[in-house]
């Protein structure tokens, strides 16, 4: 049975602490290079601050974690890749990036409406000895290829291996939890299989407070957001939803 993995992020619970960003970078063996900047650094999970644009006591702020939205329909990055380095895995619904095929043209970065893709500008490097602390479940990527969130595919592989070792065909959902979900101190990120209508995350995705960023594009992202605050929900259709601090009047 094929799955459709996705997330529902409760923005009312997000405090913008950045634990998800740190956990994601550690899990994915993303280097921290001194020459990197907000334009050139690799942050597959990036938390952005948004506000309602008001001042004083009426000002409200929220934090929106942005990562690959795992678009399911007319996936923009898949359509433009000349190398077939991006594809939607039919078994999981995860938009997969194959660095071995990527030639670094960055068409996918341009096509991604969420700016959720990053380019490896430099060879990965760590201070002497620190390579011992790298996650053995994830290969280090090279300079010249594009990166993105793949919902911790290495963890999915590990869960499959464990299921196979136990003689099972299906993984135990508790064995496959992406690093950002695990790290969130407020439990704001809910991960699940949307192909299963009874999955708690799938149920949350159907709640009236759930929304998707730029849903009008029709790419059917599998990352949902949730908020009781109207101004936050209205941001979903904002044309400037990728600026570092978005204001909404």
């Amino acid at each position: 049975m094929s799955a459709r993995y996705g997330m529902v992020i409760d923005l009312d619970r997000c405090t913008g602490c950045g634990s998800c960003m740190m956990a994601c970078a550690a899990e994915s063996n993303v280097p921290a290079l001194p020459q990197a900047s907000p334009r050139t650094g690799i942050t597959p999970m990036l938390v952005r601050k948004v506000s309602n644009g008001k001042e004083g006591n009426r000002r409200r702020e929220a934090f929106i974690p942005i990562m690959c939205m795992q678009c399911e329909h007319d996936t923009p990055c898949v359509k433009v890749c000349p190398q077939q380095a991006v594809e939607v895995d039919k078994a999981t619904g995860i938009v997969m990036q194959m660095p071995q095929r990527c030639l670094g043209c960055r068409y996918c970065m341009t096509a991604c409406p969420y700016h959720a893709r990053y380019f490896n500008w430099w060879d990965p490097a760590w201070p002497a000895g620190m390579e011992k602390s790298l996650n053995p479940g994830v290969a280090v990527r090279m300079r010249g290829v594009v990166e993105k969130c793949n919902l911790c595919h290495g963890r999915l592989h590990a869960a499959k291996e464990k299921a196979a070792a136990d003689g099972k065909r299906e993984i135990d959902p508790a064995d496959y939890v992406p690093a950002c979900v695990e790290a969130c101190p407020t439990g704001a990120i809910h991960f699940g299989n949307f192909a299963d209508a009874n999955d708690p995350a799938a149920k949350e995705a159907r709640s009236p407070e759930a929304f998707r960023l730029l849903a009008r594009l029709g790419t059917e992202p599998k990352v949902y957001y949730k908020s009781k605050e109207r101004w936050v929900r209205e941001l979903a259709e904002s044309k400037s939803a990728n600026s570092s601090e978005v204001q909404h009047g």
Partner: protein
Amino acid sequence: MRVATCKLGAWDVTSEGRGMKFSRRDLLVWGAGAAAGLMVTPVPWKVLDDVSIWSQNWSWIPQPGRGPVEVKSSFCTLCPQGCGLRVRMAAGWPVGVAGLKTHPLSQGAMCPLAFGAHQLNWHPQRLKVVRHKADQSTWQAAQAEFANACKEGPVMVIDGYPGRAASSVLESFAQKHGGQYRVVLGAEARSLAPYEAWSGAPVSALGYDVGHANTILSFGAPLLDGWGMPGQFTRLWAERAAGLSDPQLRMIQAESSLSRTAARAWQWVQIREGSEFALASGLARALMEQNLVPAHGPVPFMSIAEAAGRCGISADAITELARVIVAHRPTLVIARDENPAVAALNVVLGNVGVPGGIVRKSKEDRRIHTADRDISNTRALLIDASVPWDFVPRTDAEVFRFAAWDGGSSNADWLLPAPGFLESETDVPSAPASAIESYGIAIKLVKATSDVRSAAEFVANLEPSLVSAEKIIRQRCQDLWQKRAGVVHGQEITPVAKFASAQKLEEELRRGSVWVGEGLPQGGFHCELKEWPADVAAPGAGDWTSEWSVPVLPALASKLHVESNLRERPRRRNA
């Protein structure tokens, strides 16, 4: 010997005496066949793929280590909160850190910086050798110099993580040499200091019972951004308050700027910077004048109108806030740092010694003395690695400072390399300001890559009669077992009474389980406030790394403040 001859349009090939004519038509057919074959054979695509893989895996590109993978439970000892850790190890090295969900207090949460803690041991600023002023020295030289200093005059030992077995070793050493033992407390613990002065109960025995409060009024405390044990309050807030217009837990943040906590608070009261004393006084006055609290205790000298003027809000807003904070009780007031007026507001509200207020978590009655920055009449100063790097004493004494990382500008005469992350065994006492008593043991999980020693080991070498930290830990486990109180949270929750021996209890704690006390019956603890506190200059707000006692940040923290705009650049840290 025959040779091949080539003509225009035809190619005569001879082989072993037999002639074969390869015509122009044959060439075209061969070419077309080859082109068609290329379309169906996987070979060129495979070669292209392989070339891509080869060209992306040069020998100089670091690769993750290989080896058996195992998961260990432990505690983060980089600050005194002691969050539970799940450490993934590969080939004996930590390759990932996550929160330990079975820890009853941190509940699987950690501060963002802890997720990169496993890389800290290889930080470029790791202190690997003994340094005397600007030169490299040896442990023998440092030990000899410290031994001489101890003979010549009084010594002072400063600890940043009191309550550990190592702290007892340091304190015993100071006492044996007629010296002093002093501690440097974090902001949460400092905020409890006024209650110590008014009740006699030591700060280490007190805590904020946030779990039973229905309203929390915070005077700038970063409740959702690193205050206390990160998981303890954030989980509570997420379940009882987040996104609800009428939450079970009302979090009111009085602060000058829209911090992360203020942004997510039920109500943000924007006051002028440094006007916390005025707001606390105005609120106490309003509570008394409106008869919202029983009339007892001293009345603040400041009127509501005066307080309003200093806070930059209206007098009506203060009166209304006073009504709001008593509408949904118990109400707990929390200061960012030591602020007697804010503490006095808790006393006025009757929030001392009651659930949801300031509670006494243990019978500990020994007060510890905090260290001043100005230190005189001391021959030598020994600073433990747990003391925040920002604590730089002004003294003429010879300073022996232990540190795992060199943050620079320490003014220490001797810099002594201490164990880094998970490189030594230590016990983990109750978190400061937590209302729940707890105890755990963080075992040594990582081998040190250089000759490092802790301050406790250093002084134990000089004074062999001192009881070692290991024996003290064993004794503490024995005490816990003999009291037969509390439960141990591991894979299962087990009452202490069910452990067959103290040794079994110790073994369980060494596996990363945590002992949690049952709590004390409240009521016997109260504060006597004779007069309303005077205004004191409250310390300025630190940045988001101010409670991180390590002088450097994990390299990956640059994702938060360099490679994104999520957080501001730390003021004093070496990222």
